[in-house]
């Protein structure tokens, strides 16, 4: 029973650790200074008539004068929704990889990622099925679990092979990258085995009922191993670059798509004024070390400025 209790505790602990570490990481990134504008078009939240060809508000004269503050609804519908659709499409279809990657990884990447999405979905289905005892949900769970594990395995193995054999990918693949793929592949492999050993999901449901109700019971070894690996992966993920799907938000929303110009007196303006007060410590001859950024901008860094 010790192992069963451990698996129950691990499930809860992994979710808590994941949330704490991931949220901490996100908060830390979000708290970093607001950077300079550095957008790349097309930007999804531009006006619909400009969006398709990558146009921007700067195609019009007097764009700054035409500025008006957005309501919350406009912010949501006209700004965040198109971004969410664009990011969501990329996450689900990996269209940029498909269009631009010539190293044969698109299909395996899609399989691997869909394997992960479906595996998470399978876990949620198992929780609900274990609590409700629904035969329909159990049947759906079998199908979802099987598809998840098959897709995930093909994806992981395919990517390992591609990375190991391609002269373009191999040198860029560090041992830790193989470790990540093997880790994921193992979860899918044992997930598939657990389905073969426990095709009616009796043991799977018993495990999740035990997790939710803190009442562990004995389950088949393959079920134990699958979820031992899965929870370990959930813990590992936020410490690694596998959190990239969350980071995408910052790289796009606060980077490539950040086309907002500063309005005097706005929160952004206040933040920039604060940042302009940071002390400059760069040491090149044309820097005047010790001044604030704003003071630096007001000098020409000739000898007179340095006295």
């Amino acid at each position: 029973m010790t192992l069963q209790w451990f698996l129950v505790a691990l499930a809860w602990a992994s979710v808590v650790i994941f949330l704490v570490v991931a949220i901490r990481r996100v908060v830390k990134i979000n708290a970093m200074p607001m950077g300079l504008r550095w957008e790349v078009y097309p930007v999804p939240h531009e006006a619909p008539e400009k969006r398709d060809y990558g146009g921007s508000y700067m195609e019009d004269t007097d764009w700054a004068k035409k500025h008006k503050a957005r309501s919350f609804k406009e912010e949501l519908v006209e700004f965040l929704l198109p971004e969410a659709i664009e990011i969501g499409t990329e996450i689900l279809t990996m269209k940029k990889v498909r269009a631009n990657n010539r190293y044969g990884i698109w299909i395996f990447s899609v399989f691997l990622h869909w394997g992960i999405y479906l595996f998470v979905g399978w876990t949620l289905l198992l929780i609900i099925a274990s609590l409700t005892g629904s035969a329909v949900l159990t049947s759906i769970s079998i199908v979802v679990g099987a598809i998840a594990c098959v897709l995930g395995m093909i994806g992981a193995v395919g990517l390992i092979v591609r990375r190991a054999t391609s002269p373009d990918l191999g040198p860029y693949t560090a041992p830790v990258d193989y470790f990540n793929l093997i880790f994921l592949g193992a979860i899918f492999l044992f997930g598939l085995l657990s389905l073969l050993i426990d095709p009616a999901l009796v043991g799977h449901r018993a495990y999740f009922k035990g997790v939710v109700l803190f009442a562990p019971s004995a389950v088949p070894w393959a079920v134990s191993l699958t979820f031992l690996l899965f929870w370990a992966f959930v813990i590992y993920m936020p410490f690694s670059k596998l959190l990239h799907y969350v980071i995408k938000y910052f790289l796009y929303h606060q980077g490539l798509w950040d086309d907002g110009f500063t309005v005097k007196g706005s929160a952004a303006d206040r933040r920039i004024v604060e940042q302009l007060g940071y002390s400059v410590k760069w040491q090149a001859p044309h820097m005047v070390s010790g001044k604030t950024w704003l003071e630096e901008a007001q000098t020409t860094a000739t000898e007179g400025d340095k006295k």
Partner: protein
Amino acid sequence: MTGKPIRFKDIARLSDEPLVSLDADDLMPLPPLTDLPELKAPRARWLENYDLSLDGFSDLDIPMPKTPEEKERLVQGFLTGLEKLLDPEQNWTFAKLFRLSMDYCMRCQTCSEACHVYLGSGRQEIYRPTYRSEILRRIYQRHFTPAGKLLGPLVGADVEVNFKTVWRLLELSYRCNICRRCAQVCPEGIDNALIAREIRKLFSQELGIAPAELLKKGTRQQLTSGSSTGMNPLALKNSVEFLEEIIEEKTGRKITIPVDKKGADILLIHNAGEFLSWPENPAAFAILLDAAGINWTLSSEMVGYDAVNYAVWFDDVELARIALRHIEIARELGVKKIVVGECGHAHKALCVVADRVLPGERTAMEMPRESCLPLMWDIVKSGAIKFDPSRNDFPITMHDSCNVVRLMGIVQPQREIVKAICAQPLREMAPYGVHNYCCGGGSGFAIMDTLNFSEWRNSVSARMKVSQILGAFGDVLDPGIRKYVIAACSNCKGTLRDAINYFELWDKHGIWYGGLADLMVNAMVDLPGPYIEWNEEM
């Protein structure tokens, strides 16, 4: 080409032998051109005095550190600078995007095929957008991350930092045009071009090292003498008189170009290089604005007559200094807005990037900064000037400046103008608009002519653009048919000028280049004759 695969560790190789030796036969083919120029070996004198151990090319007219102490100082300065790049306060301008790009690249190589330098070189590994990033990432992991310090090669932290690593990395940062096509296609939003820029910034802001054309003769000269061209305010006034003479000579019109006119609606700032290399372009602007009845002015204040801000490619502090001068001059003149002439990087620097290096009263709301292209389209739409498209009855293609399209989203106004003033439909390059390829002169390459760098630019980084131009004119390559490549950007024009000469595109195929304003004036009904001067007439 050496033939041996390049490994990341090779960057630290102590030999002076280049990591790759480029051969013209290995570069991307350029049909229908044959007998392409061979690449010349570096001069023996350069090899004695400079470090060409990356690829046999360099623009860095900087004597190499000789003693072990000097080399060690450079290495330590590099590591200190890298630490500052990672510091949210010292690098508040880009620390977030830089850090995330370092930490979250999945190394899928999706960006490689987007890079014109990589493709143009015949897919040389060292020019892959991820190669230089991966070198820096491995150094960063080894020196600045717990995982790298603990696990080393297991997480890829395996590149040694010595003098050669540092110098080759510096050179590598100047093998990227920072066109950011790689960022555009990245499924994660990783910006390898930004990483190249940040490497440049480290060298400039910490060590004072940058190509002379960008720092010493670029931003430093602009801030202390008035212009990166060396043009002082008096020379500007002479140039303006020269423009007025050109206008009278070519159009018969006597126009007084307004300079330092208080309270004008628009302060127009050109790339000062236009006054010297293509005076017909600022002259064309003067003709158009005068004919359209626009209340505008030039400035004769130091920095105020040169829109360039080379620092946008390599130095945030210099960027802020120049942008601040531009805006202060406009405020002192009391103009309603600044309009940037046909200069791509100046567009992005002043209208976009500078927006957050200055406090409230200098933001775009308080002193608007705009591209000249929407204004020119407004002039056409207004009907204030009559254009006769039949005066522009020759095949035309358009080179999009990356800074104007991909990095600002200004795509349609210039196309609408062409539609209105040209007889033949615009021949779009493939791809075009926000997906265009860089001319090969972006991020300073256009003006970097020290040692043998211009040969690399012509043969490698400009290669894709030449291929696109040949493709756009594929069915009219007969040299008897004059063809015009629109390039509404000074640095793009400079690159095209050199590439056209290098590949003999005028002699072989009748391909020439010029600005958009020039083409507009060429179509003005009430002017006596053609305004554009083709190569043979110059």
